[in-house]
């Protein structure tokens, strides 16, 4: 796998999440390791944690038939900018948000 295909995430001057191809839209021959355009920064910790599923808890004597997950914790990203030893660092913070799971039928449309 070439280095260009590794996972790299950037932030642009408009604070939008950006990728290698977004830089190459501006500078077509730009590659990993080249100087970033003015106002762009690479962001650390780009990979999202996997969702966490929350299952029902059953009391004694309760029907335990339905054991599918009832909630799901997703992780949504936020940009964190810190100054460490006088250097600006750009980091992804993954904030957990828990959603109720609405039961979906298997995907059979009826035509």
């Amino acid at each position, binding site marked *: *796998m*070439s280095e260009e*295909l*590794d*996972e*790299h*995430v950037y932030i*642009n001057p*408009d604070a*939008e*999440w*950006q*990728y*290698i*191809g*977004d830089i*190459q*839209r501006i500078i*077509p021959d730009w590659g990993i390791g080249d100087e970033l355009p003015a106002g762009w920064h690479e962001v650390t910790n*780009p*990979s*999202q*944690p*996997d*969702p966490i*599923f929350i*299952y029902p808890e059953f009391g004694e004597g309760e029907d335990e038939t339905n*054991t*599918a*997950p009832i909630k*799901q914790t*997703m992780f*949504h*990203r936020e940009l964190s900018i810190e100054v460490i030893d006088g250097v600006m660092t750009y980091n992804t913070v993954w904030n957990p*948000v828990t*959603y109720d*799971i609405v039961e979906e039928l*298997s*995907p*059979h*449309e009826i*035509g």
Partner: protein
Amino acid sequence: MPLGAFKATLFGAASGGSDPGWVVQPYSDTTGSSPTYWMYDIDVASDDSVWATTLTNFSNNGAIWHINADGTIGHANDQKVLDPTQSGSTNTRGIAVADDGDVITIGGGPINDGFARTGILTARHTPGTLVQDWDNSLFFPSVTGMHVYQTPFTTKGTKGYGCNYYYDGVSKYNTQMFQISLTDGAEEALNGSNDCLYLYNSSYGVSTDPTSACVATDGSGNDWFYIQYRTSGGVGVQGVQIGTTTYMSKGYFPSSGTSVNHGGVCGADADNLYFTFGDSSNRKLHLLKVAKSNGAIQWQRKITIDSSTGGFTYIPPPVADSSGNVYVVFNSRDTQQFSSANNGSVHWAKYDSSGNIQTLDGTTLKTLTTPQAVDVYPMRSRLSSDESFLYICGAFNGGQRSFVAKLPTDGTGTDNSTALSGNFPGSDALYYKNNWTHTDAAGDASQSSLGSQSTNSISSYANQLEDCVAQTNVGIYLDEVV
């Protein structure tokens, strides 16, 4: 008389890119002359004729159509009824034209092996010949059914590649990818030693379901079979280098919420794929360019529709042209036109290989719509051989008014004040417009690992389909796009 009946006289035989566009709906005694079926999949032959199949069954039978490039109906033997043996029922969900021009159909169907089970019914058809070349049902040998969903099949050379899902018998549905021979429909080892590759979410009770079977070649000349899958809160791409145990998988998540909807995947260039999905909570279409090798995002865009109230739920797989441009198609509900009727529409847009939305005939979004306040379901898009037309199939009116549209890729043919002319059925006229207000912006999906792979075996059962018979009294309704 339906306009299509004499259209050949007006415009001559199928002649490629010089024809105007059109929107059609075929009908017959099988469907009735006021048909309400759902056109579920299409593929385009080398002469730019269109093969189409319906999700809706008719007295438990499926149907396929062959429509000429000029919108007239094709050879009588190509308008077929698919009738499973022993009074079984089928919903045909996929159709693909093989490299040699033969046509493969795939859908749910019975396995008449002594048990009442649901499998996947495949068949091969030679154009102009009524009886199928072969038919074969595939089944994962457990006690549970096996199902296909949207855009489930593709071909390359003498092989077919499909995706399906099945219940694991415990808590969830899992995704499978499989390979068949187009010579006889028999299952074959996809990874060199196992019939099929399956994907599962390791969490109890969390399903995955697949769409968008796609074969693409990498920069080293290796063929890969990719699919898109959906699971709780996210979508992903999974690929296998055909004939090997080299796999890839990557998941993508919306910026908030968990309501994601299938789009699809297609080859972009030697190193990348295009990948689309819908976010119906935040009402966005996501378009990503991702690496073939590991799914890493290269760039991403999103489209939102002003005043939207719904939609972004039915998104055909993207299609790329020979220059690496990509066409995206999606649905919406909104209140911005037709006196705030909350109408349903099909939109399409074109991006170049760098992610720049393209201005075509003055605007960046084209819309096929009716004033009806109901959902529209676009199911599949394809390009003509010279890339001058974009074909889209699906259904208006909540799935009750099927269509196949052939629209110029240069963006011409729109009219914001006058409805299309012809005899396309329905209570409201069809419009093809270019004034839907929308926003193209940087995408905001994120990426993660998602799902795990293993292998399975499947079985096949021949002769599960009666000899095909022709639909009778076939006609076609047609509106012109000029």
